[in-house]
């Protein structure tokens, strides 16, 4: 069975990062989660640049992308991914703090695959992350059940 593709989570806020990881952990996903703290870091990882020039050649199963990011913001990262012939196929799910209409419109213009407004209610947030993870990371690729005692693998990009 092929190695499971990782999930790339791009989130600058440490608390949101922790909560999202907690949510993903509860989704029983076997995928490795790679975290990036800003848009530049995410692009470096995706494009094998800088410190990631030697990383194993694997594309993520899905990119969970926060909209508001330092340096290169979420929409710019999205634009880069969807404008790159090699990356275009990677599903991108936008995570955003608000349902600002113009962000939504712009995201869909740029070819986002899904758009999730982070709910205040953690249970709903958990549910949303779980659904996103299930759909993009699992449904597209069957995987073996993961033993409960094995912790989720998280690496920093």
């Amino acid at each position, binding site marked *: 069975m092929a190695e499971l593709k990782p999930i790339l989570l791009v989130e600058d806020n440490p608390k*949101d990062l922790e909560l999202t990881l907690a949510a993903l952990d509860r989704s029983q996903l076997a995928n490795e989660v790679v975290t990036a703290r800003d848009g530049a870091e995410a692009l470096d990882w995706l494009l094998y640049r800088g410190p990631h020039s030697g990383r194993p050649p694997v594309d993520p199963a899905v990119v969970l992308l926060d909209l508001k990011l330092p340096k290169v913001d979420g929409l710019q990262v999205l634009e880069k991914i969807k404008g790159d012939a090699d990356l275009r196929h990677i599903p991108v799910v936008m995570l955003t*703090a*608000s349902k600002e209409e113009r962000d939504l419109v712009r995201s869909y213009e740029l070819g986002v695959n899904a758009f999730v407004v982070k*709910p*205040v209610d*953690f249970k709903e*947030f958990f549910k949303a992350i779980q659904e996103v993870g299930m759909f993009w990371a699992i449904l597209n690729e069957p995987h073996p059940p993961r033993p409960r005692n094995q912790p989720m693998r998280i690496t920093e990009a």
Partner: protein
Amino acid sequence: MNDFTDDRSDLGGCAAEPIHIPGSIQPHGVLLAIRPDGLEIVQASGNVAWIVAGDVLGRVLTELPGMGGLAEALRGDLPSDGTATLCTLESGGQTWAVVAHRLPDLIIVEFEVSHAGAGSLDVLHPRIRRGVEALQAVADVPALAASIAQQVRELTDFDRVLVYRFDEDWNGIVIAEEGNGALPSYMNLRFPAADIPAQARELYRLNRLRLIPDAGYEPVPILPADPLDLSHSVLRSVSPVHAQYMRNMGTAASMSISILDEGRLWGLIACHNALPKRVPIHVRNACDFLGQIAAMLIGARTRSAEAAERVALHAVEARLLSYMAAEPRFIDGLTRHADDVLELTDAKGAALIFDGRCHLLGATPTEDQVLAITDWLNRTQPHDALFQTNALATHMPGAETFAEVASGVMGMTISQLHASYMLWFRPEVVQTVSWGGDPRKETGSINPRESFAAWRELVHQRAEPWTPAQMETVRSLQGAVTGIVMRKAEEMAELTEELRRSNKELEAFSYSVSHDLRAPFRHIVGYAELLREEENGLDARGRRYLDTIIESAFSAGRLVDDLLNFSQMGRAVLTPLPIDMNKLVAEVRRMLRPETEGRRIEWHVADLHPGVGDASFLRSVWQNLLSNAIKYTRGKDPASITITSTRGTGETVWSVADDGVGFDMAYVEKLFGVFQRLHRMEDYEGSGIGLANVRRIVERHGGRTWAEGALGKGATFHFALPDPVKEKTWQN
């Protein structure tokens, strides 16, 4: 804009005739043309032998017998704009009154047959003085005309004296008459402009007094026959057409005195006699003098009447301007004071076309007809000029269909940006006009008409003409209104810019609020949930604390969301479309089904009127109203909710009535405020923003919201949406 112009050409044969150089004189005198430097005679009338025997051409005046005194007088200053009476001469057994005037290179001396002991102006002085006093005593133009006619007849003893006034198209109307009955009355008769062609009018203007003692005269040629300008000559021979005209009128002798008003030929004092008649020079001069006094007084009276009218109209205009200044929409200052708008021009109706709306005041054509007029004005008339007519049907095709209310139209544009107009209307006044003979028989004919029987014509599709003062006031109002429109446009532009800026700031603000304010609440809830899951040592009280933390953070987050929704609603662009309200209500009721679970609610939903609006926003309106009705009937079993709609004037009203807890009408104004609650939080949940949203959405649609209720007796909420403004074709 011409009135009473029937395109009747006055360029008949006589209009082309050079009547100031006829080459002949009337036979009641002798004419000499003399070089001013050497007094050499260069031209003379064929009857010169009457005063001097033998050949006079080429001779010097002083060589002629008895002319020494005259020669001396000719060396003095002579007028060039009229004749000077020089002296009386006895020659050839005849008494002559001698008058003279200058041409650029010649002196014209005329010897008119007189008689010994003819009076002088001195003799007439008492009568002239009384005449001037009488003229000054009358107040208006018609009385002045009557007085001057009477005095001229007393001085001259003509059979009939008329005062004849020109209109702006040079048709004449007889406005005063004095006579002894020997000649028929012409009072109130009109004469077409062609009767006195342009060059004849010019001679009347230059030479105020004209006498034809006998229309049946034989003209005396001037020799040699070089052209000689006789504009100012008293003996000038008249056109054969004019002589024929007089014979047709049955008058053998005529005299006319021109009345000039500021250099324009205002009218004539026309004297007629059935038999040939001479009028001595001193009497003619007295008539001329009185005529001039009358002209001055006519000018003064006309102008003071106009001035009084202008003052009155300016007062009305000033009132209208203050009304306009007092209204947020200046146009309301006009529409709410229809009486003053109509008084401004003495009109019966008016129309204001502005901002895509057509306001009709008083008696007007229908809106479609008014729009047809503005459309026609827009296509055919200069945009910055005042348009006025008293016979619209002669200018605008199709206007005859509403001639009854709008034969007279005066109007102006009040904004260059849109087709904006102010128009005034006057109804048709069917007038009976008496012409001196059928004026239409004259077209192109050199022959004067044979019959002078009065010819009556009914004039249709004409209104009373607009006065110069009314036109001037409208022009002035146009200036003021255009100024207001421009200033408003500038203010609007500034306001728009300011709004754009503050809107942008608000947008940036709410954007950062939505991101930054929501995050901490999310974190509180998230970590508290994690804590609850992972901390097993919490007792019941600890868990309750945790639940309260989660609940509070959660509702704070909801509040932020609601507030953001509310602010987004103010900025969102509406897409108004026809909406089936029955469908929309059914859809919202389906959506709210979870809220009615376990409840018994009797729904009474009438067949609702359709509306026009933004479907997604109006869905939110229904959702809020129905959700409230469900929520506040919670204590009733069964509860009753009634949904109805009615047509109002220019709007449709939809209502939701329930039999729930209701509210105290004292607080009705608080209902629609943001975060206003009339009930305790623990009784009825919600952030208190629902009705504020309803009001905001409805107001964005140009509609209104209101409510009625009583404590314990239920509540009824209404919202009304205005009827859509129908598309106007005239908008550019």
